[in-house]
């Protein structure tokens, strides 16, 4: 309980999602300025050719707008910044103050247009795109929100850790909504590991681990499964912070209190896998299959462990069941294909792996498995092509991982890769 209290207490200290106006403006202003290329900074400080009267008018507006902002007269500040940027459309700082003030006034549509303007002025700076994405997130335009947040992440947001965390958290939420729970969990794990302690993050962890595509804001105080989601999230949060003993305790209590709730045993099994407790994990996955008879991933987890431990035949039935239950799941065809390969059924293996390739053409592992199968089948040219595709996609995946979010996998075939910011465990 002390731990729960401490999280609640700490959450009040960290302005995670709702920044005070001046704080956000300051942070973003600083972020933008620090992120500007030197040439852009020079441009920012060098006024364009204007008449003395226009210059005086602009300087007055700027001064008045700054004073109004600093005094907390936000509506007045917004109006003055609007006039100032109209007078000097390339005034980057002005667009920024205007956009962030609009954002903090919950005027997301206009804020989005303003950030877009700022982004156009600074095509090599990530923060405007990120903020544009955050506006779109607020407006429910999730596809564009994802596009712009990722664009901003790739460009970089300088050394602004707070903005970086907000960006990562929202990217995680968007992944959660898309149903990419594994990648979302990776993002949330990274935030927890960075010692972010916030109720929304814990709820997000819970949603991802229980594979519920909702936003934390939707898990209201009176939401039916809130307690279950929160406790699962807390266990995941603790695990991500390397507090394994508390995480184990939390999970043990969770499965005791909610032994039949869908998703709980699967999440527990995943946790036990990370703790190298394979036997416990298999037992949990089996319970999940009892609780959720159509759970394909629980079957694939067990099948994969058999495959990994060179007992491929023992995983065949489960993999086949998973494929039948969820024929559009590329992972199922991939695991089944590899099991068939290991049991000597090369032709069938190729069939399954080619299906996996159709469903997930950019998955390097599928091409790798196919190259091995083609070699055994004597199809050298296809093997060579598959190998080249693997090398290309693998390189792209490594480069993408180096830039930011690592794509999560339901089956962690590389235990070290599964935890991008963690030590060896």
């Amino acid at each position, binding site marked *: 309980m002390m731990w729960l209290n401490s999280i609640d207490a700490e959450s009040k200290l960290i302005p995670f999602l709702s920044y005070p106006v001046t704080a956000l403006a300051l942070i973003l202003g600083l972020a933008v300025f620090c992120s500007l290329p030197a040439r852009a900074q020079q441009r920012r400080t060098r006024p364009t050719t204007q008449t003395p009267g226009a210059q005086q008018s602009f300087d007055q507006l700027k001064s008045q707008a700054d004073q109004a902002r600093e005094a907390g007269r936000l509506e007045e500040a917004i109006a003055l910044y609007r006039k100032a940027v109209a007078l000097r459309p390339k005034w980057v700082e002005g667009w920024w103050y205007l956009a962030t003030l609009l954002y903090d006034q919950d005027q997301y549509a206009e804020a989005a247009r303003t950030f877009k303007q700022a982004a156009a002025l600074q095509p090599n700076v990530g923060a405007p795109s990120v903020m544009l994405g955050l506006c779109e997130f607020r407006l429910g335009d999730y596809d564009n929100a994802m596009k712009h947040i990722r664009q901003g992440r790739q460009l970089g947001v300088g050394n602004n850790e707070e903005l970086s965390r907000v960006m990562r958290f929202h990217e995680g939420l968007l992944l959660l909504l898309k149903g990419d729970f594994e990648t979302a969990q990776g993002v949330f794990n990274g935030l927890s*590991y*960075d*010692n972010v302690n916030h109720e929304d993050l814990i709820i997000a962890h819970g949603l991802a681990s229980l594979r519920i595509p909702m936003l934390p804001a939707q898990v209201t105080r009176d939401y039916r499964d809130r307690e279950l989601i929160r406790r699962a999230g807390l266990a995941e949060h603790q695990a991500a*912070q*390397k*507090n*394994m*003993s508390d995480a184990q305790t939390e999970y043990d209590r969770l499965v005791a209190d909610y032994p039949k709730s869908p998703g709980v045993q699967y999440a527990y099994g995943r946790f036990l896998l*990370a*703790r*190298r*407790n*394979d036997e416990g994990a298999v037992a949990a996955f089996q319970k999940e299959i009892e609780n959720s008879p159509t759970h394909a991933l629980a079957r694939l987890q067990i099948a994969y462990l058999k495959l*990994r*431990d*060179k007992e491929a035949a023992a995983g065949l039935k489960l993999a086949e069941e998973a494929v039948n239950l969820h024929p559009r799941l590329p992972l199922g065809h991939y695991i089944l294909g*590899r099991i068939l390969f290991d049991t000597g059924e090369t032709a069938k293996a190729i069939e399954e792996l080619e299906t996996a390739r159709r469903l997930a053409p950019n998955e*390097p*592992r599928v*091409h*790798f*498995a196919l190259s*091995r199968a083609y*070699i055994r089948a004597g199809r050298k040219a296809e093997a060579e092509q598959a*190998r080249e595709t*693997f*090398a290309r996609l*693998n390189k792209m995946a490594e480069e993408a991982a180096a830039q930011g979010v690592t794509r999560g996998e339901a089956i962690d*075939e*590389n*235990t*070290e*890769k599964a935890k991008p*910011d*963690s*030590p*060896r*465990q």
Partner: protein
Amino acid sequence: MKYLSFVAVIALSLAIRPWSMPQAQGGSATPPVTFMDVTKASGITWTHDNGRSEARHLPETCGGGGVFFDYNNDGWMDIYLVNSGPSDFYSPKTPIRNALYRNNGDGTFTDVTEKAGVACGQMGQFGMGAAAADFDGDGWVDLYVTNYGRNVLFHNNGDGTFTDVTEKAGVAAPNWSTCATWFDYDNDGKLDLFVSSFVQYSASGNVFCGDNRLGRRYYCIPRVFKPRASFLFHNNGNGTFTDVSKESGIASVQGKSFGAVATDINNDGLMDLFVANDTVANFLFINKGHGKFEEIGLASGVGYSEAGGTRSGMGVDATDYDGDGWQDLFVANIDQELFSLYHNEKDLTFTDQAGEIGPATRLLSGWGLKFFDYDNDGDPDLILANGHPDDMVEVQVSRVKYKEPLLLFENVNGQFKNVSMQSGEIFKKDFPARGLAVADIDNDGDLDVLVINNGAPPILLRNEGGNRNNWLGLQLVAKQSNPAAVGAIITWTAGGVKHSRLKTSGGSYLASHDPREILGLGKAAKIESVEIKWPSGKVDKLTNLPINTYVKVIEGEGVVKGVAAAKVK
């Protein structure tokens, strides 16, 4: 003169049997070969200091290593042990040094480090491992020490002392080196040097990995550090080397390299290199001739796991374990990744046929390892030294331990059977093992083992009963080929059974081994023939050989006259 002393030593050792040699038991059941911990009796008191700090600098957990070599040509294998040392992240409170132990021939060793001048312990010499070889062909084995900082090449002066010739030789390979391997890649008769580079590292560049909540640090996965290219140095034959890393193709790929073994995977007479990488695909550098290597790890099937992922490769070795005439490969990985025994499919591809080794190593992390015929039945067996790199691992995961057991596998018709539990009490204990080297320390014809532990004393294991089978030891003396005869192919027939062995170089982790070759004869009472195909192309066919003794074979001249008969006695 050197040869006479060698013969005298062997004769003496066989006559007085300084370490009690178990005799074959009567009855039908043959007792298993075992390994006994003789560290205490040996007089070796040196302990590895890993310099472990709160900051958990990665080099702390990667050492140390050790070497068997006969530095004074007295016919007995001496031991060199590599410690940590001063660096940009470590200032030892008391001096730390490497140690050279002279084998007294009676089961004990004497520390001769100071006289020899091989203590290291200077700034920039945070030690990893070493590799011994006579790089200048003067008949005295030299020593190359790898460090986090700057490597050191010690020239053996032949009088019990060594001289640091690193600068003149040009082989410092700064930053962080791990394993080193002497081999002759261009068959010019001189030993060249491959040096594995690990990650780009500096104290200021250390990354926080651990428990942010408690501020407690663990050792990072090497993935968070940048890779580096390894080094290949060509021996110019005048005491200097040329860095040919770029033009040879070795530097065309960046890795995080640990173990390396020189072997010939395609039987073309050119030595190739298999290099383990941590969180990067393993490298298989195929020697294309004319000083060029091509990296074929992916295409050959040894680069990635069966799932297409990179692993944490650490120790490696090569041998022809199934007697089909083609070199197979082995790599040890971190827990959950299983170790791989790569069978050579004779077309530049390999398939992982680990068999029993896979499941047995699921929870283990392997470093030092060696194929060696510990029971002299003629085929290569395998010993594995293990230990998790992170001392905090038990806080995070269940079932995986920091200290781990050694494992011994016997080769039974090409299948490796786990015989650890019947091979001595030592296999029931756990160690933070890193380097592993093998040698016949008591010249009794079976191979003993040295394990170097991280932050703990080493263990010296005496083989008890390996010489119940018959054997013949060869000391190869090259004239035209490289001084270590790396790349020589030894073929022998005993009891109608033909065996073959390629003399590889390197292997294991941070270690090098007894350069002599012990040919296991099993129960055969005689050895019908031995053929040595030297890297130069010369072939020596030997007959009428004695057994259960060592003989010296000179390239192009065969066994030194009169020696074999003397040894039979």
